[in-house]
């Protein structure tokens, strides 16, 4: 449906002189008149006073809308060859379109629009109506399509033209559901991007809603609906952030609590460590002080006393440590009977063997609490194993295992293996220990106490003597076989010796006869 367009073209380039203006207007008119269908057009000059002279500055004319494209093309070409600043005005029905330019390209879009028909009434009116409808519900409803169809007929548009314009109005997403889904997906993607950004380094926070709002506008999706979709995603995202923050806070609280607990535990541990360290230092000082003597020198006692005060060690603890060190360095003096073996240890340390033997007799009798009564085979069994072990260990330590009960047990065992007869066994045992000599008709062989060998040259197991078993501690003492047997038996119970390894019998070895005994050599 063609319509008339009022056109106005005016040169506004300030550089043009009146005569140049007149020339340009002349050529413009000629150029336009030269176009097909324009020869009959009436071109009215626009007159203005320039330099006190009435000058033509432009033209006015009315042309058919069908001619607008060719008019614009001609005007574009003119600007291309001569870019003079020009004012173009096109009055199309109730709309004025003005362009003021000296650039040919600025007319290109207008040409394209004119070609598409959008400039002119039927297409323009129809499209505006279709877009208005599509905005209300996000799609063209059947009723709206009916209305548009009536409009199409009134505007004499073809069905194909109307369909194209409808498609343009609703855009690529035809139905409301498609638009809804597309918006929902885009919003989800937008929040996914935010999540991804949150997971990495921090970013400046930005509100995605304005662009989504713009998308809703572009899609013609109702804003209230778009906002509901946005709110749904935003709420989910926000909940996630809150959860993460809460978890982080909880973790921090747990960590803080753990740190505080660890700190307290460390402080306690440090105290314990420090106390332990002080005890160890005291122990080390004791060892140092008692390395060369059973009792620390007065100087060392001063040091130990000062150290005890400085390290806050109680007297009891200090005594315990000192005793432990003394026992470690010089042998223990434990007693089940409450007997003090310190003097025995002192004497043995000094290698005062005879005095040590006499002290042994004294402590054993004290242990047995015999109170001047003779020791019997029964009372021997009351000697505590702890005390026997202490006495043995002290003798053994200071004689380099030469003396002590264990040495005596070993001698007894070796005699047991040699002698079959009990009496001979005990005789040989005492002889091996150096307590007797072989007897003769006039001499029973008992060594008097003062003739015993109180030195390290004495036979194995020579000391301590068993004089304490005798009814009196006389110089000429005699051991009863019963008591001796009871002592050995009690020792074997309290301090059993390691079993004797059975020698492997070599069947090829020759056999020899010794005192009626057959032994493997």
């Amino acid at each position, binding site marked *: 449906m063609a319509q008339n367009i009022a056109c106005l073209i005016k040169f506004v380039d300030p550089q043009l002189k009146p005569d140049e203006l007149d020339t340009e207007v002349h050529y413009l008119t000629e150029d336009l008149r030269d176009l097909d269908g324009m020869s009959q057009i009436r071109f009215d000059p626009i007159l203005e006073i320039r330099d006190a002279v009435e000058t033509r500055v432009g033209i006015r004319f009315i042309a058919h809308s069908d001619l607008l494209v060719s008019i614009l093309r001609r005007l574009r070409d003119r600007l291309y060859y001569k870019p003079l600043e020009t004012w173009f005005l096109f009055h199309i029905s109730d709309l004025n379109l*003005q362009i003021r330019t000296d650039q040919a390209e600025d007319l290109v879009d207008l040409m394209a629009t004119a070609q598409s028909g959008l400039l002119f009434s039927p297409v323009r009116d129809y499209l505006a109506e279709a877009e*208005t409808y599509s905005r209300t519900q996000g799609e063209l409803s059947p009723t709206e399509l009916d209305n548009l169809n009536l409009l199409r007929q009134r505007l004499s548009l073809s069905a194909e033209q109307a369909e194209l314009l409808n498609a343009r109005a609703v855009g690529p997403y035809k139905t409301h559901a498609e638009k809804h889904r597309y918006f929902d997906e885009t919003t989800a993607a937008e929040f996914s991007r935010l999540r991804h950004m949150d997971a990495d380094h921090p970013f400046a926070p930005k509100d995605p809603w304005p662009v989504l709002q713009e998308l809703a506008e572009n899609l013609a999706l109702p804003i209230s609906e778009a906002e509901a979709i946005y709110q749904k995603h935003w709420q989910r995202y926000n909940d996630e952030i809150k959860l993460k923050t809460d978890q982080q806070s909880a973790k921090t609280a747990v960590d803080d609590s753990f740190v505080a607990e660890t700190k307290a535990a460390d402080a306690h541990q440090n105290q314990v460590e420090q106390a332990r360290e002080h005890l160890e230092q005291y122990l080390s000082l004791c060892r140092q002080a008692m390395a060369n003597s059973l009792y620390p020198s007065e100087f060392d006692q001063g040091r130990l006393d*000062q150290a005890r005060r400085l390290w806050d060690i109680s007297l009891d603890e200090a005594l315990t440590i000192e005793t432990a060190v003394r026992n470690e360095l010089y042998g223990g003096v434990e007693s089940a009977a409450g007997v003090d073996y310190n003097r025995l240890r002192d004497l043995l340390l000094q290698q005062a063997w005879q005095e040590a033997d006499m002290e042994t007799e004294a402590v054993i009798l004290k242990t047995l609490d015999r109170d001047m009564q003779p020791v019997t085979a029964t009372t021997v069994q009351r000697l505590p194993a702890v005390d026997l072990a202490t006495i043995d260990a002290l003798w053994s330590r200071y004689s380099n295992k030469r003396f002590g009960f264990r040495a005596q047990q070993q001698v007894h065992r070796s005699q047991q293996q040699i002698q079959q007869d009990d009496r001979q066994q005990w005789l040989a045992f005492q002889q091996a220990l150096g307590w007797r000599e072989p007897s003769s008709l006039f001499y029973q062989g008992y060594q008097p106490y003062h003739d015993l060998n109180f030195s390290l040259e004495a036979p194995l197991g020579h000391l301590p003597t068993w004089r304490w078993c005798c009814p009196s501690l006389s110089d000429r003492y005699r051991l009863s076989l019963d008591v001796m047997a009871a002592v050995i038996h009690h020792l074997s119970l309290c301090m059993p010796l390691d079993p004797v390894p059975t020698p492997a019998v070599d069947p090829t070895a020759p056999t020899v006869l010794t005192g009626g005994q057959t032994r493997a050599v």
Partner: protein
Amino acid sequence: MVKELDSGNSFRLSIKSLEDDSDPRVVHAGVQALCSSITQLSQLEQTKFAFLPNPQYSVLAEAIAHPRAVEPSLYAGLQCRAPLSKLRVVLRHVGNWLERTAQKTLFVLEIPPSHTITLQTSQAKILAQLLTLGEALLPPHEFYRTQAEGYVSTFGELTPAANANLSLVQQRVGLSIEEANELNATAKGPFKALAEKYQHFRKELLVCKQASDLDENFWNVMRAKAISMGLPEADAQFLKDERLNALHQEAEQTRQQAEAEAAAEAQRQHERQQRLLGYRHQFEEMVIDSLPQGVARKHIGPDGDQPDAALFHQNVMADLAGSDFNRGRLTQAREYYNLDPQEAKAVEKTVLDELYLLSDLL
């Protein structure tokens, strides 16, 4: 970075009531309502408006009629400039406004490059033609590029929503996908993603080793860099604040470290004082323990009449040294407090001096 609005990336809309018979106050209220509602649209909060006074309204006459309620002027219209990306939103908003007011109004839409469309109407559906025509007249490449650059300047990259919008624009203005991709790449610049821009900008900011390095001059250079790499101003500012925070934290750490060192030194001094004090107490105890009978005449001097401090010291120390036990205690205490001989001597002298002064009273 939000670009300044210029004629290349924005449009100007002038709206003026043509209702001569209407009450100027009603027209004025309508204009103000429109202005207020446009500023409520997102990203248009800062829109500046110029108002067109109503020529029908006489301030003088109004002042005579209502002397206490003189208004400077009443508006018949307004003019505003907004980004091209908001053309659709604004025109549709104005369309809604027109539907409510239904007043005959003149609309003048100026769009790049140099088009001006003028329309007079009182109907929203006729006004809709302004949008159709306006969008049709916009140069498609320029329009698309402006939109893409707008998104990049706001978000630093093309977000999913921005891409969705651009996809619709691409179809509406009739660009091919290849053309659109090319324009997207141009808009994005050398760094495709915001994360890359952050990484690069953060690296650049690392040259500032202290807060004072990040002064106005340096920041102007960095802002220019941000613009050239398409990093939005909000992000650049965020990264600046982040760097400043880090620098402040580093400075705070350095300060704390210096404080800790000073505290450690003070602690060392305190411990030394404690050691001296501890030794002093121990020495006092030792002297007292070694003198169970108190200060005797022999300590003061042979004649007793003219006490001699040096002699007093010598005698007390001789008493102490006379006992192996005391010597042991002294040795252990000196070892424990880890004092050098001069320090120990000084402490001992102080104690003995005090004791000497007190000896007169004893």
